[in-house]
């Protein structure tokens, strides 16, 4: 699992703040605040190794420049670099315990020096800035009070007035929304939806682990992660926002960041862009609002993944279950070095044929298929739990015919694991379902709603409440400032009435139309 903040997998790193990194003389790349060469020409992170010495004892590990870390501090994670742990732990990270004394985990007087060696670090997220895109939407409490539904007034959602419409006001697409084109395919018993509250999500990533365990998601090894092939169906996107008054190219830009996180998973779009491009009908919609994968039908063109604006689809580039994906073999040069058992193909060992598999397979959830190579997979909304619930309700209903699954009965694995209760899931046709109430929350919005994909997953905007008495008080979250600056928009004003910044060249077409219908409107997408 990737570290919730650094997104580093398989090992621990020596974290230092950008300012400290400068003071240590690490050659930093402008704008990105990663050590120069850290991200080499082929997209791999090859980190300078640091030697940390405290009271004469030293450990070595790859450096990771972590915006937001206190200056002058070196962060080391314990529990890595184990030597007697078997395959899984072998070669992952370095052991930081030698530094630890009976004085506790906070040590002072560390000496840090650069070692010429570089080490490959595998991360799951390479770009940490939102670039002014309102993916995560947030506001301060005062702003929220001014316009509670500000989040619906962001991105291009308010700029759709020129788009051709159907008589009922919905956007006219080449293909009509499937449930409208064929109303009989839409169940009037159960319809599933999820709401994620960004206000409560802490980014702890427990959901990612729960999802992996529930859905038999294969472990791919460090080498594959560094090639960008992690398989997690659910991920926590972490974005920094830097001080908008400092140009991004400045070397001090990342010294004092704000950070937001966002759980991202298959959005189960009603007008799913993945479905219409699959040549063999391997990804289709069911009658309860799920975008389902027929693994047996999938031929692996990967077109669905290309056309997914959320990039939540995951492809089995290898037989990750059948083949031995040893973890320590992260290759260093990705062009030439196709070593490691995964690359041996049929000449490598077949884990299914080994005795050990009898034990390994007990780890798998028997209700979920184990996928072979060459097929695409993604979040199913824990369809196995939904099916179990439906069967249970049907058994209970007997002759009453009341087979509707109660709104809050099904809990997805991520939802169950979330300690903050940020994830709500349920049957929106049951008025009691908590998702219903949350979808009516003014903070509710759809990521990339302007694409008219009509996702079944929506988000509640995050509200911050900084103390005006504090020196680092800000009137508006930085991601919002970035958005306002880059897009020239103010979500607290209606479109078409001439905002403070006016409408830039990019948005001239939206003028004079009042506010357009919001695709992420309350409950409107069901």
């Amino acid at each position, binding site marked *: 699992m990737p570290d919730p903040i650094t997104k580093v997998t398989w090992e621990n790193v020596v974290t230092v703040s950008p300012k400290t990194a400068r003071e240590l003389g690490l050659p930093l790349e402008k704008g990105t605040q990663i050590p120069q060469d850290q991200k080499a020409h082929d*997209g*791999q992170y090859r980190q300078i190794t640091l030697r940390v010495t405290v009271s004469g004892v030293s450990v070595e590990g790859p450096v990771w420049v972590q915006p937001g870390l206190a200056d002058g501090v070196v962060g080391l994670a314990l529990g890595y670099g184990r030597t007697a742990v078997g395959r899984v732990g072998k070669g992952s990270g370095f052991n930081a315990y030698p530094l630890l004394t009976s004085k506790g985990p906070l040590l002072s007087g560390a000496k840090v020096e650069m070692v010429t060696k570089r080490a490959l670090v595998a991360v799951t997220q*390479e*770009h*940490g*800035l*939102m*670039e*002014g*895109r309102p*993916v995560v939407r947030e506001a301060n409490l005062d702003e929220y009070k001014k316009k509670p539904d500000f989040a619906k007034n962001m991105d*291009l959602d308010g700029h759709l007035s020129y788009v051709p419409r159907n008589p009922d006001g919905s956007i006219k697409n080449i293909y009509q929304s499937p449930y409208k084109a064929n109303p009989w395919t839409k169940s009037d018993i159960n319809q599933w939806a999820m709401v994620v509250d960004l206000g409560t999500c802490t980014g702890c990533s427990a959901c990612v682990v729960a999802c992996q365990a529930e859905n038999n998601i294969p472990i791919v090894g460090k080498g594959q992660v560094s*090639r960008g*092939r992690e398989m997690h169906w659910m991920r926590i*996107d972490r*974005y920094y926002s830097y001080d908008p008054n400092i140009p991004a190219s400045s070397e001090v830009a990342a010294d004092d960041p704000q950070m937001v996180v966002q759980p*991202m998973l298959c959005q189960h779009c009603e007008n799913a*862009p993945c479905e*219409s*491009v*699959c*040549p*063999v*009908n391997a990804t289709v919609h069911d009658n309860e609002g799920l975008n389902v994968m027929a693994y047996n*039908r*999938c*031929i*692996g*063109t*990967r*077109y669905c*993944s*290309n*056309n997914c*604006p*959320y*990039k939540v689809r*995951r*492809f*089995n*580039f*290898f037989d990750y279950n059948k083949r031995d994906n040893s973890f320590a073999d992260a290759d260093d040069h990705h*062009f*030439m070095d*196709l070593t490691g058992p*995964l*690359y*041996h*193909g*049929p000449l490598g060992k077949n884990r299914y044929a080994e005795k050990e598999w009898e034990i390994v397979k007990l780890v798998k959830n028997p209700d979920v298929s184990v996928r*072979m*190579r*060459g*097929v695409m997979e993604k979040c199913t909304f824990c369809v196995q739990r939904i099916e179990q619930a439906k069967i249970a309700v049907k058994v209970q209903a007997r002759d009453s015919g009341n087979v509707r699954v109660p709104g809050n009965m099904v809990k997805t694995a991520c939802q169950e694991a979330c300690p903050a209760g940020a994830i709500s899931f349920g049957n929106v046709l049951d008025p009691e379902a908590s998702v219903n109430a949350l979808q009516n929350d003014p903070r509710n919005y759809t990521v*990339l709603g302007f694409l008219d994909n009509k996702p079944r997953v929506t988000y509640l905007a995050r509200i911050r409440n900084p103390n005006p008495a504090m020196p680092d008080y800000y009137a508006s979250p930085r991601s919002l400032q970035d958005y306002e600056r880059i*897009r020239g928009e103010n979500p607290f004003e209606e479109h078409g009435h001439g905002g403070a910044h006016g409408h830039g*060249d*990019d*948005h*001239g077409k939206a003028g004079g139309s009042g506010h357009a219908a919001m695709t992420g409107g309350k409950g409107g997408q069901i």
Partner: protein
Amino acid sequence: MANAAAMSAGATPSSKKGGAHSHPAPPKIVAAAPPRELERYPLVLNNRPLNWITERIAGVCEKPMPIWWWPAFIVSFGGMMLMAGLVTYLIATGVGVWGLNQPAAWAWDITNFVFWIGIGHAGTLISAVLCLLRQKWRTAINRAAEAMTLFAVACAGIFPVVHTGRVWMALWWLPPIPNNMAIWPQFRSPLLWDVFAVSTYGTVSLLFWYTGLVPDLATLRDRATCKIKRLLYGFFSLGWTGSNRNWSNYEKAYLILAGLSTPLVLSVHSIVSFDFAVSQVPGWHTTIFPPYFVAGAIFSGFGMVLTLMLPMRALFHLEDIITVKHVELMCKVILATGSMVGYAYGMEFFIAWYGGSPYELYAFKNRAFGPYWWAYWSMITCNVISPHLFWSKKIRTNMVLVWIIAGFVNVGMWFERFVIIVTSIHRDYLPSSWGYFTPTWVDVFTFVGSFGLFMTLFLLFIRYLPAIAISEVKAVTPQADPHHPLGGAKEHHH
């Protein structure tokens, strides 16, 4: 034998003249040679007789191959075997042996596909469109260009098939075969349209090529020096006798196939462009793509025709048939289509700004100034700057320079597809998913190997089949024109 080339009503001037007088004289058939300034350049130089044409062209595949043919063939064959080996490795092991990842789920595979299918457009354009437009200069180059089309389509067809995760299933489920589950392919998917478009194109191109070959195969049959050759050429020449009925049927079939192929020239690459245009990805979702892709395909196709034809022309001494004028005309096609492609590049940027989508705008900025800037500027250099060198007649008539520039066109068009595919998907909507694609050596050598396949087929083609349409070239000589002073079969027998 000249195949009914009497197409213009040549008798009109004299009959008009005759009509002006009171007692009409019988109209004279023999027309005077046109005034010098109106005379068209000859399509076969040095007033070569018909027999010379047969000897020269048939001679290429009848005489033993020159020494250079063997090393060229061995290298090409090695390349083909390399590709076969790497494709086997890919299918046996998994798509992961390529450098693909999330978000770049397509890269070299589809780049190579579009590259090859684009090259395959010149042949049909030359044979079908120029045939319908009565461009007689096509006859010197159409046969080899059509062959090139077929071989390019063969190369192109391999990539989208083997790039799938489960090839064994793909070949079964992509064709619309009725089945007991009542599951059909997804007819909304551009990939399925590709399956139909490319297979139709391959089939029609093959038929067109073969139909054109029949009279020449008969010529080879008649000239065959051994029994095996006679039997094989005889079998494939379908009992051709050169009778009027044969020619009449042939001309009709050829015209029908030209008519069928012409829309395909436009449709195939339009459909290939739909793979991108129909999607939601910024940088792909563009209505300009169909015409832009078609222009680019013809551009790259002519680039490849020149790349192959110029050495062939020099090595087999075909300068009198593939004249400098032919090469110049092809350069002009490259200039025209290259300008269209350059216009499309500019228009894409304009629309990205004018369209008002910040995502689209970013995609284009990222193309030119993002991590793949080198690919973008390679493309611009090769595709926008180099064709404009053809404004100069000096360059157009310098065969070495033309060959070099045609090479740049080939390189540029490969980069164009790479730029469109990879720079668009490597950074799309959510910045958290942004990534970078790096090829592995398997990517690179599979592509290199596809050139081996292409060249192997092409070398075998010039070894065994007439690389220039003998009968068609004869039909555009003055001897074939009964109204020309040299016309009719007066001086030379076939």
